């Protein structure tokens, strides 16, 4: 049988190393099938230690009370809500990559979507922790759900953005988890079919009896597409609703209509930065250079420079509107952010989020791995500062100068924040050991259109002009079907 594949010198290469289907399986399954490397073991121990300290700090908070944090009457939200918004923002990249990029048919998504979705789920878990423990009395957390109770029943306030948050985040977590796991099932079946004994039993159980039947694949694609369609507005809604926590209040600097788009752009920005940090480490440690290529890194850097600039425009718009409003409290809020007691956080925010990413307009820098790594850390720091500026700086200087205050976190607050890193990395490291970090089936499905043996200028000599006619004729036939 001689069906030579169609060679396109113009298409970008997304899988390097002239892979065959079997090599893809071997390469991606390898990390989950081999004994863990020394680097993994060290990283895992560090993560678990950090997580344990975080758990200790959470228990300390619950046992001793919320007074172990340095919050006060003026500054009622500090590191807790800053960290919450930061983590939930990071948790936006995964579903964005899987859902929105699926709808836009961006093929580079296949190399990074699996790990990014996992990152989303773990980041949302870290985020969800903070609203729960900042309630102080964790055992009453069930009160946030509308369930029939003996207090009337007294229902929750459905008009409150804080309750909308409960619904938004629990829905986002559930949908992301189902989306991720549904995509994982065929790849878990691959691991199942490669293993024996107890491992095979376990992977059999978790791969849900996947057979690879054509009808199942057809339904699978249909399901993925619709889930992507409904997850897209969901991603946008989550940070919109988080921004409502602030925007529906009457605090100068918070009460602005720009908050929803500004928060969503910031969330995508920080989420992609975290994906870059993780992907650069993952591809190096797990030797996945052929699947997470410079092309992927560059594509993500393009998203970063776009969203970073959107965030910058939002910052400037806020400044302009506060001046234009001629409302002294609003003007003071922004003057205070830039020049007040917390000016350093404003400088950090502007520098890391707006100025630094601008270097990504230059292709050479977009394709530099070292630079991308440092830039991704910068952006993570900058986006943390943004939330700190919005929350703490604003609260510290309210309407009454007599109640102005200052806030520094205690060791307990810092410990809980570190603990969420421990949780995040512990879960991520376990994930790299038990499941394929790259979506095997999806990568195989783009091999013939994006593999290095079929694409790129290097293959110009193998290009057959007759293929153009074949493809065009096929496309026309499809057009006729539709008309």
């Amino acid at each position, binding site marked *: 049988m001689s069906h030579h594949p169609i060679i396109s010198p113009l298409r970008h290469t997304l899988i390097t190393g002239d892979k065959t289907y079997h090599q893809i399986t071997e390469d991606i399954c390898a990390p989950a099938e081999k004994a863990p490397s020394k680097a993994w073991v060290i990283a895992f121990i560090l993560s678990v230690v950090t997580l344990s300290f975080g758990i200790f700090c959470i228990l300390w908070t619950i046992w001793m009370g919320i007074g172990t944090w340095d919050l006060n009457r003026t500054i009622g939200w500090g590191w807790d809500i800053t960290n919450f918004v930061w983590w939930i923002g990071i948790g936006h990249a995964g579903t964005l990559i899987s859902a929105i990029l699926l709808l836009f048919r961006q093929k580079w998504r296949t190399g990074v979507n699996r790990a990014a979705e996992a990152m989303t789920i773990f980041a949302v878990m870290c985020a969800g922790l903070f609203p729960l423990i900042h309630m102080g009395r964790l055992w009453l957390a069930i009160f946030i759900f509308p369930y029939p109770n003996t207090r009337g029943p007294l229902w929750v306030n*459905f*008009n409150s953005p804080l309750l909308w948050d409960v*619904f938004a985040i629990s*829905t986002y977590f559930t949908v992301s988890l189902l989306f991720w796991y549904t995509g994982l099932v065929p790849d878990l079946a691959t691991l199942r*079919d490669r293993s024996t004994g107890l491992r095979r039993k376990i992977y059999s159980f978790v791969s849900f009896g996947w057979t690879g039947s054509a009808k*199942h694949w057809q339904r699978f694609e249909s399901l993925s597409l619709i889930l992507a369609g409904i997850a897209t507005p969901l991603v946008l809604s989550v940070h919109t609703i988080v921004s409502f926590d602030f925007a529906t209040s009457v605090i100068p600097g918070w009460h602005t209509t720009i908050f929803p788009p500004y928060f969503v752009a910031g969330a995508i920005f920080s989420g992609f930065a975290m994906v870059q940090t993780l992907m650069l480490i993952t591809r190096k440690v797990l030797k996945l250079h052929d699947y997470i290529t410079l092309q992927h890194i560059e594509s993500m850097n393009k998203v970063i420079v776009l969203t970073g600039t959107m965030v910058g425009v939002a910052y400037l718009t806020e400044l302009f509107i506060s001046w234009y409003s001629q409302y002294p409290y609003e003007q003071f809020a922004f003057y205070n952010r830039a020049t007040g007691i917390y000016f350093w956080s404003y400088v950090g925010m502007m520098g890391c989020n707006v100025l630094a990413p601008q270097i990504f307009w230059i292709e050479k820098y977009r394709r530099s791995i070292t630079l991308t790594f440092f830039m991704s850390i910068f952006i993570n720091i900058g986006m943390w500062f943004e939330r700190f500026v919005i929350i703490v700086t604003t609260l510290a200087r309210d309407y009454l100068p007599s109640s102005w205050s200052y806030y520094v976190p205690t060791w307990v607050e810092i410990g809980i924040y570190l603990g969420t890193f421990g949780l995040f990395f512990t879960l991520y490291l376990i994930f790299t050991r038990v499941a394929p970090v790259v979506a095997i*089936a999806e990568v195989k499905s783009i091999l013939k259109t994006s593999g290095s043996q079929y694409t790129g200028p290097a293959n110009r000599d193998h290009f057959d002009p007759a293929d153009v006619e074949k493809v065009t004729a096929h496309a026309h036939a499809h057009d006729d079907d539709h008309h």
Partner: protein
Amino acid sequence: MEGHKDVLFGLYDDEDDLIHAIQKAQKDHLDIHDVFTPFPVHGLDEVMGLSESRLHIAGFVYGALGTLTAFLFMSWVFTRDWPIIFGGKPYWSVPAFIPITFELTVLFSCVGMVITYYTVCGMGPGADNPTLHDRITDDKFCLAFNVSDSSKEEIDSLKGFLSGTGATELNIKTI
């Protein structure tokens, strides 16, 4: 459940070989039992003449159910069960119900669709569906015929068809 089946299957190394084999099988009026692939092969459902999945209809129905559940429940709570005035707004403050209504629409639609998907595919935690070959989830493309009631001649002619269309491995398995 139905009884055991004898399945004759051929493994192809390339999805294009598989598609051509299916097209030839249809031309020869052979009754294909099923086709198994390691990844979703573009255009395979069209070639096989599979009818379009109706999951999206289910998704819409679940979504609509979520919309109604959220909106009607909140309306009932704030107008009938325990009316409270928040910030001087009317009891039935519809714009404030939109975010939760939206979230529940998405939640019901997604959870409902995923459950429906696994149910109609006969999959689920611990489900143990028989597989024909371990390489199907790796790099082999499988075309299978049901030969439970076939004579030896029919089986031989199917074998000839499979190897003639480029199958690199043939086997019969009882599932």
